[in-house]
């Protein structure tokens, strides 16, 4: 199963440059998620790979083959669309079969593959139905089945779960992940849903404005966001980003906030030696705050509660810190005891802070 690489890809619509000199390469068997807000170019990139759009400049390789100028059907890809895009006048069987119409396979092989995909996706009882008679989840399975029968090395998914309800989305997410583990195929998956990205991907490419902001494993993206955009985009509630000034002493490096709160970042792995007085932006994850510290902490301060909200197993509390809201993840039990206006002492765990250069927005 092949490796996919984009080399110096540029795509323009008239005068509008959507992608500019983009490079990205994924390994055999990777589950790549292209993640980004609407209009960031992620779907454009997928359509370029599929061959549904032509690249303005650059090269797309699948394995050792240059597919830049190949027809979509000749690229050895299968795609699952957001709206399922099932053929409404064909039965499920007909839909799966049409997926194989470009490959000149013998009839038994076609039937064998349809039976295999139907069994894998548990859509065997539906084979003689038309798409209009199926539920959303069933249509989604058929759409995946139509891609599976092609038996190709690379699967493309274009926001396939966004039309499903929340429960079904969680189920299908697991199933797609299971399929990937089973088939060991390469998958390129476009979504704006960070939970889908975090749960399914082996690699995430966070995109914004046609530029890949960061490319890495879900853990890397979450733990070590490369810049302010990634830091703010990944995570819910979002990372708290606050302006601070560095204070460098002989044995201690601290980030000092406007209110005078000092955050100890002595153990921060600076890329270049920190300088006293540098303007930085400190990124503090909501879950790295604690109300009652048991271990070493980087900072402790007292802030007034604004409100708390419970989201099932979790709860978030919002505090007023330097005229802005500071989000914290708290235990649901503790959240129930917080009353608006009450002042609470909070601590930030040691070694968990993210620092970004205030001028460039890049990770320090």
């Amino acid at each position, binding site marked *: 199963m092949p490796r996919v690489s984009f080399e110096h890809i540029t795509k323009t619509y008239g005068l509008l440059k959507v992608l500019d000199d983009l490079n990205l390469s994924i390994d055999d068997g990777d589950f790549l998620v292209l993640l980004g807000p609407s209009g960031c170019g992620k779907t454009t990139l997928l359509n370029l790979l599929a061959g*549904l759009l032509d690249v303005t400049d650059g090269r797309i390789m699948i394995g050792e083959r240059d597919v830049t100028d190949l027809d979509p*059907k000749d690229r050895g890809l299968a795609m699952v669309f957001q709206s399922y*895009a*099932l*053929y*409404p*006048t064909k039965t499920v069987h007909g839909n799966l079969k*049409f997926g*194989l*119409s470009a490959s000149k396979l013998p009839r038994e092989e076609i039937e064998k593959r349809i039976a295999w995909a139907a069994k894998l996706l548990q859509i065997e009882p539906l084979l003689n139905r038309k798409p209009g008679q199926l539920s959303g989840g069933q249509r989604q399975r058929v759409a995946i089945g139509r891609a599976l029968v092609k038996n190709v090395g690379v699967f493309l998914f274009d926001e396939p779960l966004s039309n499903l309800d929340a429960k079904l989305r969680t189920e299908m997410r697991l199933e797609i992940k299971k399929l990937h583990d089973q088939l060991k195929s390469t998958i390129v998956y476009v979504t704006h849903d960070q939970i889908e990205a975090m749960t399914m991907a082996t690699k995430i490419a966070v995109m914004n404005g046609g530029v890949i902001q960061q490319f890495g494993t879900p853990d890397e993206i979450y733990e070590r966001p490369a810049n302010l955009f990634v830091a703010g985009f990944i995570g819910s509630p979002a990372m708290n980003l606050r302006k601070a000034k560095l204070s460098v002493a002989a044995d201690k490096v601290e980030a000092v906030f406007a209110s005078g709160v000092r955050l100890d970042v002595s153990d921060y792995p600076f890329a270049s030696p920190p300088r006293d007085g540098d303007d930085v932006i400190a990124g503090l994850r909501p879950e790295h705050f604690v109300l009652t510290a048991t271990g070493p902490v980087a900072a402790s301060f007292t802030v007034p509660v604004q409100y708390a909200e419970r989201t099932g197993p979790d709860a978030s509390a919002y505090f007023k810190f330097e005229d802005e809201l500071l989000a914290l993840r708290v235990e649901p039990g503790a959240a129930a005891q917080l009353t608006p206006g009450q002042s609470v002492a909070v601590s930030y765990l040691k070694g968990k802070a993210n620092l970004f250069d205030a001028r460039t927005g890049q990770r320090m």
Partner: protein
Amino acid sequence: MTDLTATQKALGAEVAVRSAPYFPRKKKAITGRSIAVLAFLAICALFFCIPLYVVITTSFKTMDQIREGAMFALPNVWTLEAWDHAWNTACSGTRCEGLKVGFWNSVSILIPSLVLSIGLSIVTGYALALWNVKWAGPFLFVLFICAFVPFQIIMFPLISMTATLKVYGSIWGVAIIHAVLAMPVLTLIFRNYYKDIPQEIMSAAVMDSGSFWKIFFEIILPMSGNILIVVLILQITSIWNDYLIGVTFGGLGAQPMTVNLANLITISTGTVRYNDNMAAALLTAIPPLVIYFFVGKLFVQGITAGAIKG
């Protein structure tokens, strides 16, 4: 006045007539206004029905009764003689073979021109709507302009073109002219219909098969039921009811039924056989009616069966 009457006023007189019985407070169900509406509708209906009544009854009368002059009387003796005469032996010019000649001419004009016009325009519309065609925009604009050129303006060039092609005065001549003249409008209709097919279905088909014709026949054509019925009704009626193209390009040997009918009723000698004429007119009008009845039913079925989300 109460709120109810105000609402009635707003909803219009027709609703007022229908909803009147549901208001038990009013003793009289029919108001002055609704009587006026009913009277107007009745006059409208009579306006169409009386001539039709005269045409139908006259076609079943004998010439003897017609000469008596009682136009609205029912036939004394119901007879199909006039229908038989109009179909088999009425004279058009010097040929006395009745309307059946024209009928079969019309049928043999209708079928090839239907196949030609729909066949060409459906594929053109499909290509323009769903494939990347170079200059598709300007091409559509030209089509749009063509759809509004009156036939009379290009009649003479068309006559000389058909003469060069050696089809002038033949069934094929009339059929081709019909097909050519219908092309712009039909192409626009198909193109607009196909523009509404979700782009993703087309993308999926391109990735699955990539073949222009395979996608057309297996995916697009089965989705075109509704629009085909609409176009079929449109084309059948316009071709069947056409007179001008038939009389211009049909010559003497390929006159459609309408031209045949016109020749049949305009005689300069002898008595006017009103019963024959009425029967002939009815015979000419029947085929489109039959199409309406049969295809119209399919049309309704097509609308309900096609309600599938992409």
